[in-house]
């Protein structure tokens, strides 16, 4: 496509000189925009929805009561839950796995959980060498230590 432009407005040498001036200014500008990532990190929002973590009781058991709400509400079926009952008749999760690779971090599981057991966390650095490692089992979910995601507060819609 040829851009319509009056002939007298055309310029190459002047435009080149101007461009060279601009790039020279940037070349010598010491204020680089690059963030030196592993050394400097972003300040994360308290509402960032990242890697999950499971809340635990004081004795170390997961708070999960295996009610089955989170696998039901999960839009991408990334939660696998097999419930079981102990000798007191209390339900617990025999298998609880979250495929972080499949998860879209919508946060519904955290919102729907009646006992505030499963949470999303303010944490995003979870790269792995294999896909299998992305499936977090219950033990691993309980071990996570990052802060949990704050839910949206209607009285403070902008989270200020």
């Amino acid at each position, binding site marked *: 496509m040829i851009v*319509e432009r009056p002939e007298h407005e055309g310029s190459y040498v002047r435009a080149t000189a101007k*461009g060279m001036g601009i790039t020279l200014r*940037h070349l010598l*500008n010491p204020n680089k*925009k690059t963030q030196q990532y592993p050394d400097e990190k972003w300040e994360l929002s308290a509402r960032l929805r990242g890697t999950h973590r499971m809340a635990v009781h004081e004795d170390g058991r997961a708070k999960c009561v295996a009610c089955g709400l989170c696998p039901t509400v999960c839009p991408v079926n990334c939660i696998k839950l097999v419930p079981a009952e102990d000798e007191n008749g209390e339900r617990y999760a025999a298998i609880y796995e979250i495929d972080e690779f499949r998860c879209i971090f919508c946060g519904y599981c955290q919102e729907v959980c009646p006992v505030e057991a499963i949470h999303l966390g303010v944490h995003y650095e979870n790269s792995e060498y294999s896909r299998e490692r992305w499936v977090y089992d219950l033990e691993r979910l309980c071990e996570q230590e990052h802060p949990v995601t704050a839910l949206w507060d209607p009285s403070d819609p902008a989270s200020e």
Partner: protein
Amino acid sequence: MPSISGTAFGIATLVKALLFFTLLMLGVMLATIVERKIAGFIQDRSGPNRVGPWGILQVIADGIKNIIKEETMPREAIEPFFLLAPALAIIPGTVLFAIIPFASPLPTRWGLVEMIVADVPIGFLYVLAIASIGVYGVAMGGWASGSKYSLLGGLRGSAQMISYEVALALSLVPLILLAGDLRAPEIVSMQQTFTAGPPTYAVWFIAPLLLGTFLFFVSGLAETNRLPFDLPEAEAELITGYHTEYSAMKFSMFMIGEFAHVITTAALVTVFFLGGWDIPLWRGDNIRVLADGSVIGDPTWWKTVLTAGMFAAKTGVVVVLFMWIRWTLPRFRYDQLMDLGWKFMLEAVTVYILVIAGTILGIESVGIEVGPLYAGILFAVNLVLAALVIFVMDRGTLIKGAAHGARHDARIAAHGVPRLAAAADEGREG
């Protein structure tokens, strides 16, 4: 001290060839990191900085990566030529370096060693001959890949390099008129002592041949396939052109070839127009080896080191200029490239030869001797010519293609839509 001769000459030449090749490859390594740093700085990024201090070891990391990566061989590729092309891409850039005088002669126990691998008497013609070979790597790589993108890139590359070779060759003719010698060391010493009598001032040929420098530089940009002339690579249209199908070290060899070519072109600009290894405002480095082997001046080893440093600095500045241009200017459209080459550069350089030859004839018939006044008159002529050239280029009719658009619009206004396009429109409606 007599010049080195006999077996010692052979050994010295071998050592120099090895040394120069090593230095050139080190220069290429440095150039890749500098290129990426400059690219980063111009875009307000910091460039590679994680491997080693200032990211300097990044090149080694890249080299290791390229060596251990998988080599791919496309099914359609023509194997022997596909393998040969990357090697051919490296050769011209490195071989061209043989005629570049790198520093002042070095006195050794066995005689005076000139710091040039091959002091061929036809240095200038050698430059042109080897520069033409550069097209083979590109064309062969493009054709042997068996891919349409590569083929188009290779064809573009060959057309472009052949077109600009004419301007490249002719832009050196005024230099030969002025220097009166085809040997690169003679051209350097001519710039150091621009006078027929005792040495006075160094006159770098960039002053009396300002426009020639510009034309040579532009043709050099085109010859090395660097932006704004990197049509053979044109990512937007051709993926990466002639080296689309190449991977790992073979791709790396194309890159090494390109950077070697850039460094060599910068070194040629330095030798021909920036005084070579001449240190400005110092006459101690005016050392000249005459054809019969006698030496004017006083060569010492530390002068060799100093002048080598000076040469490297000048070449470095030109290389940085190359990179600065690359990260500033957008790529030409293909017709603009050809227009610039054939309809402007060729004419400009031809007229330039005539004007410079005429001026030299005029000056010498008036009786002005080679010296500052001689150079001053040529400089004034060059300024006028450069102003003219810049005015013509800046008009925009030449490069921008706006005039073509305007003419096209006028034609449509006068005669309606051209028949072919109209027929296509009818076909679409029907």
